[in-house]
């Protein structure tokens, strides 16, 4: 005869629901492109996750080896397509670094800074807007797009494109800007400052938003360092690292601006709210840089006259990084003296930032997963290149 069944003492931890594999992406409303993550869930809790990238692998590095340096600038646009100016700038600086005695005109440097910072604002606007949408607030997204549209129209008047500018090129910029454009930029600065308040009212101080993001996806400083996380994600963890200040390129050393870092004001240091807040504050700082640069923009040529004919950098290697809106965008350029690069490697910030998703999403809920991916603010064009 069987032994009588003796009921065990009941413990909450004994109750286990069946685990479920959930495939999120590559087509999902909140994976910000074609990112795919396979989640192992226990009910709503994420036990483990595995990221899959590469759905937008567009062979950027092969193209750089196949087309000339100037044509490669076009492909850098499409890396992080929200910050094309920054990508152009990084690649151009990398190519210029191969030369020993290339002098970039002052006016070009100023235009570069203005464009890069305006583009950073546009990019952060989109990041904030889509982040709000991930959390479920749709209206802030449209407000952000409304303001972003103003920046795009400035860019359109400057270089004729709305998204992939191909504007900053080795040796300067493609076209000069005139007074009407400078006036438009000044107008935008005036317009935008009060608007930042609107985002605060809609999102930053919204209790539901704070509760959804604070204490969620906490990225500790150590983890961030070991994964090479940069940009707002790293600063959200409280590390004051910004290449514009620490390793100044172009003319950033001349401007006065703050580096916002996460403070854990609503939750833990390094949570989603901190990363979000760093972006909101960075927009204001970028605006300060734009104002300073616009007010002191000198006259003169907009590109160097040292480059004539085909762009043939001397043989050599160079590595350059700039602080892009998502982190440190680096280019390792190897030239063998021809007008086509021998090898170009792109060090993409999003590639690092998203690689730690598994580590910070463990134990979160599915809704948090969306919040975490949104707060890392990836652009798949850059991850997959």
């Amino acid at each position: 005869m069987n032994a009588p069944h003796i009921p065990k003492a009941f413990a909450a931890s004994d109750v286990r629901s069946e685990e479920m594999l959930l495939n999120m992406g590559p087509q999902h409303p909140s994976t910000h492109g074609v990112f795919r993550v396979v989640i192992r869930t226990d009910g709503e809790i994420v036990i483990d996750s595995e990221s899959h990238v590469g759905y937008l692998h567009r062979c950027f590095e092969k193209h750089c080896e196949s087309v000339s340096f100037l044509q490669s600038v076009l492909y850098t646009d499409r890396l992080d397509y929200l910050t094309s100016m920054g990508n152009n700038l990084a690649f151009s600086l990398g190519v210029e670094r191969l030369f020993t005695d290339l002098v970039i005109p002052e006016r070009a440097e100023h235009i570069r800074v203005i464009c890069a910072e305006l583009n950073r604002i546009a990019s952060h606007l989109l990041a904030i807007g889509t982040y709000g949408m991930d959390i479920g607030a749709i209206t802030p997204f449209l407000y952000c797009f409304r303001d972003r549209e103003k920046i795009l129209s400035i860019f359109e008047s400057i270089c004729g494109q709305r998204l992939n500018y191909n504007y900053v090129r080795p040796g300067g910029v493609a076209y000069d800007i005139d007074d009407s454009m400078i006036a438009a930029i000044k107008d935008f600065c005036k317009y935008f400052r009060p608007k930042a308040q609107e985002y605060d009212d809609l999102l930053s101080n919204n209790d539901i938003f704070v509760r959804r993001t604070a204490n969620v996806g906490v990225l500790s400083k150590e983890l961030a360092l070991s994964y090479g996380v940069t940009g707002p994600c790293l600063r959200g963890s409280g590390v004051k690292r910004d290449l514009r200040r620490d390793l100044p390129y172009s003319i950033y050393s001349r401007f006065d601006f703050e580096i916002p870092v996460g403070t854990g004001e609503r939750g833990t240091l390094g949570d989603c709210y901190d990363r979000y807040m760093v972006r909101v504050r960075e927009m204001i700082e970028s605006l300060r840089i734009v104002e300073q640069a616009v007010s002191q923009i000198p006259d003169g040529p907009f590109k160097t006259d040292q480059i004539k004919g085909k762009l043939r950098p001397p043989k050599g290697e160079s590595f350059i990084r700039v602080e892009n809106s998502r982190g440190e965008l680096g280019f390792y350029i190897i030239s063998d003296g021809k007008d086509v690069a021998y090898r170009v490697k792109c060090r993409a910030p999003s590639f690092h930032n998203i690689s730690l998703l598994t580590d910070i999403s463990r134990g979160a809920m599915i809704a948090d997963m969306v919040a975490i991916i949104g707060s890392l603010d990836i652009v798949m064009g850059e991850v997959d290149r």
Partner: protein
Amino acid sequence: MMTPYTLVDWVLGDGAGWIARFIGAVLVWAVPITGFVSFVGLLSIWLERKISAHIQCRLGPMEVGYHGALQTVADGVKLLAKEDLVPADADRFLFAFAPILAFAGTVVGFAVVPFGPGLIVADLDIGIFYLAAVGSLEAIGVIAAGWASNNKWSLFGSVRAATQVVSYEIPMGLAFVTIAALAGTLSMSGIVDQQQGWIANWFLFRNPFTWIAFIIYYIAALAECKRAPFDLPEAESELVSGFHTEYSGMRFAIFFLAEYAQMYVVSAVAVVLFLGGWYSGIAPLDAAVGTGVAGKLVGAGIIVTKSFLLVCVQMWLRWTLPRIRLDQMLYLCMKILMPFGMLTLVGSTMWEYYFPTPEIAKVGGGWTGNTVMTGVVVAIIGTLSLIVYVRSVIRSTPSLRAASNP
């Protein structure tokens, strides 16, 4: 059941037999109700799109009819003409049955929702109870839909829906009981009748606790309708489309219609319970129109307008607030709404015991000392919470405030 308020009785007279009553009810009610549900759906979907657009600095539908007035008609007919897909591994019967269940669950709710004095399908003695009971039917449809779809996202959506709707039944029930205790009846028209006269007679203003009951009811109603910030079952950014991910064409349209019809039902119930039903709140006006045909028409206009205003508030909230998380949703229900619901019930009955509303005020209307006291208490609470809120906002992000005002 035999109150002279139901329209069938009014048409047929009290002496009609049950067969005549049944046929009469079908003719007089089933057809107009279905029409009204469709009208409510079409109008509120159009309203939703226009309101959301104007909140978002857009125009919304403009090209299809005058200011997009025919937009929802076009959407509806298009959805009817679309291919009807059933996923290969779905439970075909449940898949087809779920939208009908959800829609039916909503439509039967209309049976006790009054459209005016006497314009009510069935003036049940247990009106509120009936409503609470059939209100959950829609959730069963949603759960069935998620299960039948054989899609993991749908399943998540339906389980979330089950969690949410079942939990929020409780605070909603507490709000119901608070009003039932004051009114002494569960009948919808009975409750409305007690609110005639001046606006002070609305149950919202009866005592300070009914304010809390109203807020609790409205939050719970948002959750029942699965509207933002409680749109977890169909959270678009998380669950693709939640329980109706696999639904296309007509079946999706039915879900859509059911959602908007339910929004109207809960708003109409809020109007009946708290906002004076078909009474305008101006005693001479109500007395002037009487209870004849004119009274019915004016009453219907008032109650439908009030309900649509509340529907618009739901839309306003949806396009303003982010979505809350599953655990926060449960926290809000179990730890905030339920204790406050209990408090409301106890507080409201105690208040009524110690400061009973004079009969004369109940019938004739008028501003009594009780009303004034209620106003004072609500004003104090409101001011205090406003101060707390403003302080928290000012304290929240000082650096950004400084940065944006150089």
